[in-house]
């Protein structure tokens, strides 16, 4: 177990990993990584390693859950037993069940669910390694997987947290800041529509601090959004190259 650090922000105003308050962790994104899935994406954000896969639109199972005017969206957020310090039992925890719900509800506003009535789309998120902020990384990856699967969407959803470490409002909290910080505000956004699709908060913030945190998280979302677009472009490009060969 990591011990509680003395200070989350040093004298120079830098964080434990040397980042400035408004700096993201290193991010690596890949699209189209699971050959069996209809769409998939992989993200590394700091030490987070998250894989998202999409199956669908496909037949609803069990059948009686089918809806006449829209698709059914399902989501399963799941952590590998070895993804965290103490081995996690494979059975879904209450936390995983809640996160499955909020992740689904953060992606659903983007999807034209009425385009595919009587079908089902499954979003599967597997956290292979966790480092604080897995729900945001999951949303970012799952949105790309949905795009990769060709699910029609209003925008690509992107997520990032801001929060308070020590007395400072910081972006993209890592594990220690999540655990020992004052507050954590994960936000998911459809940048083109200026629409927040996920908002949670843990900790204590004044109204003004909350406003700053939300605004900082939105800035972070926009930066990651650019990387999402780039990842799609580079997959298309390589697919095109392969096609031309």
């Amino acid at each position, binding site marked *: 177990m990591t011990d509680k650090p003395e200070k989350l922000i040093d004298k120079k105003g830098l964080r434990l990993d040397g980042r400035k308050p408004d700096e993201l962790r290193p991010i690596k994104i890949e699209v189209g990584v699971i050959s069996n899935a209809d769409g998939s994406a992989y993200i590394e954000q700091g030490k987070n390693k998250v894989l998202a896969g999409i199956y669908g639109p496909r037949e609803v199972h069990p059948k009686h859950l089918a809806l006449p005017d829209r698709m059914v969206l399902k989501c399963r957020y799941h952590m590998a037993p070895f993804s965290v310090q103490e081995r996690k039992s494979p059975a879904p925890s209450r936390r995983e069940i809640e996160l499955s719900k909020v992740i689904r509800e953060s992606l659903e506003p983007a999807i034209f669910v009425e385009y595919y009535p009587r079908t089902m789309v499954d979003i599967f998120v597997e956290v292979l390694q966790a480092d604080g902020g897995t729900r945001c990384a999951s949303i970012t990856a799952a949105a790309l997987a949905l795009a990769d699967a060709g699910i029609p969407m209003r925008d690509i959803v992107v997520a990032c947290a801001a929060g308070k470490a020590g007395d400072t409002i910081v972006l993209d909290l890592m594990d220690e800041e999540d655990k020992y910080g004052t507050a954590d505000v994960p936000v998911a956004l459809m940048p083109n529509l200026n629409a*927040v699709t996920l908002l949670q908060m843990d900790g204590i913030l004044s*109204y003004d601090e909350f406003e700053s945190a939300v605004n900082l998280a939105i800035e972070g979302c926009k930066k990651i959004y650019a990387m999402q677009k780039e990842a799609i472009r580079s997959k298309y490009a390589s697919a095109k190259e392969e096609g031309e060969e």
Partner: protein
Amino acid sequence: MSAVITKVKQKEIAQLIEKGKRLDGRGLTDFREIKIEQGIIERAEGSARVRLGRTDVLVGTKIEFGEPFPDTPTEGVLTVTTELVPLASPVFEAGPPDENSIELARIVDRGIRESKAIDTEKLCIEPGKKVIVVFVDVYVLNHDGNLIDASALAAMGALLNTKVPNYEVEDGEVKTTSGHTQLPIRRNPVTVTFAKIGGKLIVDPWLEEEQVMDARLSIAIDDDGNICAIQKGGNGYFEPAMILEAAKIAKDKAKEIRKKLGW
């Protein structure tokens, strides 16, 4: 429910809200009448029943002695569960808790935990070995909308009248003795839930409003007016400005409720 009826109702409710009105006559930021009874289950260490209009939630607390979590060896343990028993609504089913039940429990838990409402350091008996465990069991008796705020209020109401039996430690085992002390409560957080319908925010949605809302936002406010927990729900979204507006209203409403209850 048929999707067509829902859309008709949604339009009707949204048109009213557009004019600042609601089906049950309330203003957009009005809560329904809040009734709270405390200490009604003698077998429980603490209890409270909250009625928010026809929504009816009973919370009982139980005290046990147990082990602390490894990462907080000097703190007592808080465990919140909710049961959406099928008695309370035709849409609730018996069985292990579903995602709605688990989300509700975790929102109630977060409001109490993040506001540091309970002085958990005082619940430590022997660091790393024995602490007091507080079970908060939320029992919904009738569901007529906004279970979050009713449950959060009933949970705090029950904690406020929870008695911790006196005890002594002998050979590493904790035994209760006669008498009791009050559970140490430091803060009284209040949660305020909004629904977004037709682009407008309303407070304390009742069942029909919940059925047609685009999205839901719950904000817990502590005694100093700080925000201590938030949860967005539902398949819609909020513009950033609307979130900030909700945070301001929540602060006012929480103060109002705290005053009304004498907390």
